[in-house]
């Protein structure tokens, strides 16, 4: 029997359905009209954003919160280029998204046609892989591959560029059962010999530190991490991307390390004799001056991406594999009766006592206090952040207990990420309270999405730590440029409460400590999208801080 044919556009929708996609964030335009026409009848929820950048960030937030692949859709040319920042953000943080773009008809490609942009060329360095559909009959195969590539191995964004004429071309649709990619076979199982060698180092270490990141969360290895840490009584420090991988209030937790890490985490690294690095990439914000990083330590590096091993630091025992898988195996070999790390843990406990993460507790409304109050009122919230001081305070002062509850643009540091990402998080996790800890500068980069959250009834809360400054840049100007605040002052930019109201969202303001809890509670209770304007101390600094280029134990306390 001859198969009935369907259009390329319909094949796209069918492929998405086959991949279990239930929501798309997108924005229409000329070269995706056939796709939008198919979406009109489809069972897939489409959320109309107000700027394509937000669609990419929302897909990214959705993916980080749920572990599923996020999907965004834009038209050709300006629609596609508006996705670029969002794709780059996802790429730097290894987030699985599939970005779909319309393209001018095949016959016009290369002609500088109206709204033509070579988006596969533009996104070459910021995608894990990308496709230009050359023939409508390739659509099912490309979608199967794209989703597979996005979510397996080291996850990452994949883009599919779909010329308009392929969207109307009729094809026989058959979704492939499996992918066959000669050049892509991620390694999940760690080498047994290497794991044994690692175990032996671990059993002999007297000052071990587990340095863990986003890889633990992506591979769902938190339980195994806890098992390892408690099994050998080793302290655990996480990167920004790893917040939530290990409970912040656990006695073995050192909190975050690096530029704005805790003193005790940085001291522990510098004195350690063995670093077990899992799902991390030795980023410069973590290592500080690389030649002075962990001078006394042997390094075991476990990562799914072989290219990360040995890229920035020399490694004694490399193990390529999936964190969960490798840790499970490793745990077989590291059972030990008595801990050699007692003296080490005592030393760390003393550091913790001497150098706690803190701030000035007076009557002024300080941003750290706001984050602490959020932590108290909404301990189970998913925290999303913008970029800058707000991001660091959100990492330092909320008590994270679970994976996928801290969502932040780590690698690219994209201002404007938080609010649209929070929207994606809330769509993926409607039962959770979702709070974007924001800066007044960052929020204004995507505040147009207030329309989206109101229209689609996505009740996220934006907690603006409003300091009237591009605070993080101001902090650097204060420290390194003689307090010359060049172009970092944002006073009187907008009344955020009125802005919220203009869009039909709830707007509340707190100017003193006593109001903070009340407005958080009111926002949660309202079940509406809400903007909370916390008018905080203007020149508060993120502390402690390792100046750029210094070793991570050369850490300063700032007023």
């Amino acid at each position, binding site marked *: 029997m001859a198969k009935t044919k369907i259009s390329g556009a319909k094949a796209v929708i069918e492929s998405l359905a086959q991949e279990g996609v239930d929501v798309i964030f997108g924005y229409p335009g000329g070269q995706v009209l056939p796709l939008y026409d198919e979406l009109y009848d489809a069972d897939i929820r489409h959320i109309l954003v107000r700027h394509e950048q937000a669609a990419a960030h929302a897909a990214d937030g959705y993916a980080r919160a749920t572990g599923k692949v996020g999907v965004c859709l834009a038209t050709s040319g300006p629609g596609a280029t508006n996705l670029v920042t969002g794709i780059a953000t996802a790429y730097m943080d290894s987030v699985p998204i599939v970005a779909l773009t319309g393209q001018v008809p095949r016959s016009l490609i290369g002609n500088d046609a109206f709204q033509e942009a070579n988006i*596969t060329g533009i996104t070459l360095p910021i995608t894990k892989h990308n496709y230009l559909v050359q023939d409508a009959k390739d659509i099912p195969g490309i979608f199967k591959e794209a989703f597979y590539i996005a979510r397996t191995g080291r996850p990452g964004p994949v883009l599919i560029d779909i010329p308009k004429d392929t969207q109307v071309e009729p094809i026989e649709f058959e979704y492939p059962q499996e992918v066959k990619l000669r*050049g892509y076979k991620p390694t999940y199982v760690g080498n047994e010999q290497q794991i044994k060698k690692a175990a032996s180092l671990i059993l002999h270490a007297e000052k071990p530190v587990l340095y863990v990141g986003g890889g633990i969360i992506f591979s769902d290895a938190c339980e195994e991490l806890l098992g390892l840490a408690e099994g050998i009584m080793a302290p655990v420090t996480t990167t920004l991307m790893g917040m939530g991988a290990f409970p912040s209030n656990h006695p073995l937790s050192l909190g975050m390390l690096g530029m704005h890490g805790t003193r005790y985490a940085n001291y522990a690294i510098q004195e350690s004799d063995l670093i077990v690095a899992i799902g991390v990439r030795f980023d410069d914000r973590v290592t500080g001056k690389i030649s002075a990083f962990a001078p006394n330590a042997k390094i075991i590096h476990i990562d799914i991406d072989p290219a990360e091993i040995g890229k920035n630091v020399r490694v004694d025992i490399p193990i390529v594999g999936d964190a969960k898988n490798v840790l499970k195996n490793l745990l077989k070999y590291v059972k030990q009766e008595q801990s050699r790390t007692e003296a080490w843990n005592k030393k760390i406990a003393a550091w913790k006592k001497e150098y706690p993460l803190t701030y000035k507790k007076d009557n002024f409304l300080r941003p750290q206090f706001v984050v602490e109050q959020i932590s108290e009122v909404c301990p189970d919230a998913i925290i999303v952040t913008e970029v800058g001081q707000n991001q660091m305070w959100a990492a330092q002062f909320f008590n994270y207990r679970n994976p996928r509850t801290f969502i932040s643009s780590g690698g690219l540091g994209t201002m404007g990420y938080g609010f649209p990402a929070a929207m994606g998080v809330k769509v993926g996790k409607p039962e959770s309270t979702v709070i974007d800890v924001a800066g007044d500068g960052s929020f204004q980069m995507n505040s147009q999405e207030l329309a989206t959250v109101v229209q689609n009834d996505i009740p996220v809360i934006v907690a603006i730590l409003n300091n009237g400054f591009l605070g993080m840049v101001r902090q650097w100007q204060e420290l390194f440029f003689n307090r010359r605040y060049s172009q970092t002052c944002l006073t009187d930019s907008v009344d955020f409460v009125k802005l919220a109201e203009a869009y039909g969202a709830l707007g509340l303001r707190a100017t003193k400590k006593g109001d903070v809890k009340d407005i958080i509670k009111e926002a949660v209770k309202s079940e509406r999208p809400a903007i909370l304007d916390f008018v905080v101390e203007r020149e508060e600094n993120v502390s402690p801080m390792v100046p750029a280029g210094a070793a991570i134990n050369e850490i300063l306390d700032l007023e």
Partner: protein
Amino acid sequence: MKRTLAVLVENKPGVLARVAGLFSRRGFNIESLAVGVTENPDTSRMTIVVSGDDHVLEQVMKQLNKLIDVIRVSDLPAEEAVNRELALIKVGVDSTTRAEVMQIVDVFRAKIVDVGIKSVVVEVTGDESKINAMEQLLRQFGIKEMVRTGKIAMNRGAKVVQTEKKA
């Protein structure tokens, strides 16, 4: 230090751009690059000469392997491989120098593939040093034009670079 890599890739549009883009964005230097299809029409083979130490070479290989369209990357150490390059050199000649040029061509086991009144085109095959030496010698007569293919290389003996990646 110069290293030679054999890179098997999917024979698809855009793959060269992916490979070249990777080199420029990661700050790796390509000394030479030659591409052609293999015995399997789905597969192309690039021979890439890179300069750098062991650390650079390791990163280049790992980063190349990350590209989905790259099937396999092999390092071909000079002593274990046959290395060849082809050059066409247009040399200015007159009645007094023609014979001398032909003699040099003979000694190098090269060929004259085109003869004109004022010039000849020499075809020479060999490893890099041979071609450099040839160029050196012909320079005195005046090289009007020269084109080189870039190096291609293959393992000596039974060892092969497989087109299917072993799982």
